[in-house]
């Protein structure tokens, strides 16, 4: 099983949020229950694999969710004090850890190195320029929907 397999990504995401944030995220089957992510304040983390810069993992989550988690971790429950820089930093770190966890789960951690870790605020998932033929994995949370997308290289379509 490859690290980009949806089952592996689902497990990696669930375990990360349970371990770091004591939060349970429920996977959603988009065929049984179509998913829409409303426009609003979203955070987008992206990481590439060094061995193949055409492969990327995208992590998109509601800003309110990450603000809550950052406040628990960093500021003793004072969300108002969380800065944009802190949220972007936490988004990068979650994306980074998620990919590492997926690689370990798939036993594909022998030689893989990570690169080009970025995070940004976006208003809509339509702002993402992700290549075609990528099946997102969705998770429901009390703050809204998390989306994970594993992207294989499509020249000219990458974010």
């Amino acid at each position, binding site marked *: 099983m490859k690290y980009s397999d949806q089952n592996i990504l689902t497990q990696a995401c669930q*375990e*990360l949020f349970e*371990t*770091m944030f004591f939060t349970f995220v429920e996977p959603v089957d988009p065929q049984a229950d179509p998913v829409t992510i409303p426009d609003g304040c979203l955070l987008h983390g992206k990481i590439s694999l060094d061995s193949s810069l055409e492969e990327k993992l995208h992590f998109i989550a509601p800003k309110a969710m990450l603000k809550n988690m*950052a406040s628990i*971790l*960093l500021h003793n429950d004072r969300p108002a004090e969380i800065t944009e820089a*802190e949220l972007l*930093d*936490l988004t*990068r*770190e979650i994306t*980074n*850890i998620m*990919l*590492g*966890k997926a*690689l*370990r789960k798939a036993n594909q*951690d*022998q*030689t*893989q*190195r*990570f690169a080009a870790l970025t995070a940004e605020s976006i208003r809509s998932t339509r702002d993402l320029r992700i290549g075609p033929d990528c099946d997102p994995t969705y998770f429901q949370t009390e703050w809204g929907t998390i989306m994970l997308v594993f992207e294989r290289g499509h020249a000219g379509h990458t974010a």
Partner: protein
Amino acid sequence: MSFNVLIIDDSFSMRRIIRRILSISGFDLGLVLEAANGREALELMSENWVDLILSDINMPEMDGLTFLKEVRKSEVHKNTPVVIITTEACTASLNEAYALGVRDYIKKPFVPEQIRDRLTGILKGGKA
């Protein structure tokens, strides 16, 4: 006897999480220093005594392995215990870190108890 700890990670969220875990884990801490990469860490170590280093591997400017090689060359700090705390999934990097004498390796994500339990033995072993 208090211990000075140096946390090295390019994510300030992660540095703060680790600092917080250290503070609630009952260790007798002296200085808790933070650096965003190996170069910053070496600068801090030139001015401060450090009893324990907690370091990431993947960092800009100077990564954890390069930093570790520099530390091992230092007459003052060559025996300072180092624990790697990283997402780094590359086994070759971890093997290199162990060859450079790291005491332990903690994978992210971690729970506070992992940090506390793994560091307790090292800190109880006394100052380097």
